């Protein structure tokens, strides 16, 4: 690898937007057959750099080399023609069309009269699918595929062109562990064909598992490139945020209060069975398991979005039936959902209005909304949660992920809930803001809230929880306290390898 020429080399790329120097002299190179991680907090310049590479933005300075030639990417089509292919985080597929049509979208093979050459299309597609070793064929409707397979369609699309460099942008965000394995195999196959791969991800485990080198950006500036083998999570994190991150265990030092929420033998047809646990005031209970283990469905049941098929829910020792989210809110249960942008926020509305949304009915002065009361609520949580926004009028769509999450949390705190359920609190949030959210969750518990945290990231669960409920395939496998949990026994529990079942 040392003698080979890079397939792609960026030199001193500068890009300025009004008021911001988004990229300030960034250089890095990708060797053939290399998986090169690009890391940095949100806003560090990764997306801008990729947009420059993809021809969506033109750089104000610097040069892109492919092989020995300096190239100019005038637009997405030109980047594609030069062999630069993007696998986007948000899949961009037409669900009603077949796999083949999606792969060759925009360049369907034709016969006379502008007719589509279906035979050739199917043959070409199946040849590519065979290489990827997937379990579907060219004529499958894309909408019928799982997310992981849809991603394979995107990758197959990359293989139709003579790809020189393939860029994966957070490809594992919605994959299960077994699906990740398949993806990593495909990446390894690509590697073997001497394609250069740029891999963007926040997930350290993956980075250390599959990448050869890591380049780190911070505030638009190049922080350096390191060999993955010579680095540790701590050293990379430090490069990203310029300081060390505290990921130690964090059991409560304050006294726990009464049981706020108790669940006994709760089941919901296919999703989970016979689930029992309790959450005390002042306690953070983590729910850890694979995607599909039933954790989110439990949260949805507690929030009145699903009807349980059996079992009891007790709030403050009293059995309750929760028929709707309105019901749940009235009883003091709040849910910070997994999909912040889709389920938690009205992106086009400003910060203040998002925060007061669930109680706008009660904030009335005659027929009008009481603006003063709204401002009070906003000011209180703006300060308490340290939300960084230019002002209440800012549309939440323009805030960073971490600050958006704080708005959602603030929204529910203003309702004074007993139980706060947080589903994937830091998904898509950069490292710096992550630790702030973690601190915030701990602080809320200290103030006496009963907090349930659902997370797919082990360090996060270990870091914030007093107790951890490990789930596998719809069942509670074991409940750990912060004393008896180790990474090993936690992993065993969530992969169904343990025989100890704690009811």
């Amino acid at each position, binding site marked *: 690898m040392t003698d080979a020429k890079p397939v792609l080399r960026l030199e001193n790329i500068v890009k300025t937007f009004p008021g911001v120097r988004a990229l300030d002299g960034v250089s890095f190179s990708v060797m053939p057959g290399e998986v090169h991680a690009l890391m940095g907090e949100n806003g560090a310049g990764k997306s801008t750099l990729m947009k420059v590479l993809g021809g969506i933005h033109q750089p104000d300075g610097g040069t892109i080399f492919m092989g020995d030639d300096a190239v100019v990417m005038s637009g997405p089509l030109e980047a594609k023609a030069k062999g630069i292919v993007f696998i986007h985080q948000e899949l*961009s597929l*037409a669900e009603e069309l077949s796999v083949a*049509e999606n792969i060759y*979208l*925009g360049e369907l093979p034709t016969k006379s*009269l502008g007719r*589509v050459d279906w035979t050739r299309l199917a043959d070409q597609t199946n040849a590519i699918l065979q290489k990827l070793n997937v379990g579907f064929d060219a004529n499958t409707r894309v909408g*019928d595929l799982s997310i992981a397979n849809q991603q394979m369609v995107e990758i197959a699309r990359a293989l139709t062109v003579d790809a020189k460099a393939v860029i994966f942008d957070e490809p594992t965000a919605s994959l299960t562990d077994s699906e990740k394995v398949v993806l990593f195999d495909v990446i390894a196959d690509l590697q073997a064909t001497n394609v250069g791969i740029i891999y963007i991800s926040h997930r350290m485990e993956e980075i250390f598992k599959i990448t050869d080198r890591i380049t780190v950006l911070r505030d638009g500036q190049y922080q350096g490139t390191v060999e993955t083998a010579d680095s540790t999570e701590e050293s990379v994190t430090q490069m990203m945020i310029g300081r060390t991150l505290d990921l130690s265990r964090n059991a409560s030092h304050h006294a726990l209060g009464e049981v706020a929420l108790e669940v006994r033998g709760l089941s919901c047809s296919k999703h989970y069975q016979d689930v029992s646990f309790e959450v005390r005031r002042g306690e953070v209970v983590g729910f850890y398991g694979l995607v599909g283990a039933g954790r989110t469905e439990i949260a949805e049941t507690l929030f009145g979005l699903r009807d349980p098929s059996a079992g009891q829910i007790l709030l403050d020792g009293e059995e309750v039936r929760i028929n709707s989210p309105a019901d749940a809110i009235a009883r003091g249960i709040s849910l910070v959902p997994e999909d912040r942008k889709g389920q938690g926020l009205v992106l086009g509305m400003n910060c203040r209005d998002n925060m007061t949304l669930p109680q706008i009915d009660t904030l009335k002065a005659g027929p009008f909304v009481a603006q003063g009361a709204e401002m009070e609520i906003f000011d209180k949580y703006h300060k308490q949660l340290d939300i960084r926004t230019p002002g209440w009028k800012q549309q939440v769509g323009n805030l960073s992920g971490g600050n958006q999450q704080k708005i959602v949390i603030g929204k529910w705190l203003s309702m004074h809930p007993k139980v706060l359920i947080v589903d994937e609190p830091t998904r898509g949030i950069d490292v710096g803001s992550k630790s702030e959210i973690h601190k915030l969750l701990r602080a809320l518990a200290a103030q006496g809230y009963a907090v349930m945290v659902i997370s797919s990231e082990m360090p996060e669960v270990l870091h914030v929880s007093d107790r951890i409920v490990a789930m596998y395939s719809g069942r509670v496998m074991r409940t750990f306290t912060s004393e008896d949990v180790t990474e090993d026994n936690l992993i065993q529990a969530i992969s169904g390898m343990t025989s100890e079942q704690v009811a």
Partner: protein
Amino acid sequence: MKPGTVSTALKSGAIWGFIILELIFFSVAGEFLSLSDKAFMDWDNMLLLLKQSAPIGIIAMGMTIVMVNGNIDLSVGATFAIAAIVLLDSMTWPIFAGLGDWVIPVAWLLALVVGTLLGALNGLIVWKTGVDAFIVTLGAMLGYRGIVFMFNGEQPTSHLNWTLVDFAEAEFLGLATASWFLLAATFVIWFVMAKTVHGRNAYAIGDNREAAVNAGIRVGPHMMINFAIIGFLAALSAVVFYSESGSVNPNDGQLYELWVITAVVLGGTKITGGAGNVIGTFGGVIAIQLLRKGLGHIGADTSTVNLVIGLILVAVLVLDRQLNMKGKEELKV
């Protein structure tokens, strides 16, 4: 069997099942309620039904491709009226006086060109301004209708050319001229949508516009072509119909857009785009015409017909939603 297979089969076959149901119902009910002693399912009656379906049906084929593309065209009724006026009025223009019956193809061509241009104009505005097609064609609906009234006030525009009437009333292989045009329009649009790259790109754009753009498909020109197609078909519908009747009122074609959209939606085209086909639309057109005719047959008046069709449209969409949700276990709303 994969989940959703049953519902898919039900959905694609639903419109034909519905047609059979209508046929049975009106045949039986007609025995007791009809004033005429002719059976409802008489062959001549069915042929007449096909002919009467033509005006709405021809436009519905264009609406299918426009809706699959993710747009809608509310101006078809007004375009229909303008094309009719161009057809009938141009045959009386002094410059064409020397042409004899050759004025007929000239008048047809003029009307079709005008329709196509009006459609393309809608498409161009949608493309270049990015304004929603609903709004653009709502404006066009009012504007084009305004032009109709400016032309001749409240007066009808009439011209009878007997050669043309003979052509329009002719039958070939047992089918009326209008029926042939309906079948031809159905076939051509089916071919375009199912077989050509333009058609498949139209599906892709309607399904996921961003994906189409990312794939390098030029969305605008495709949309404009589809608007031109529906304009052409609205004009064709007018040309076929008024060749026979010879007189157009300024209100003619009003509410056609709604009938057309009803037929297309009944036929299974997704209102948000990306899915649908003209065979389903053809079924939708026949189903509506059967309902109008059948209710007439058993003695119901027009207002009843509208009420019933409205109810059925909503019922169909509710049913469709139920079928779509099966096997997905949706969250409560």
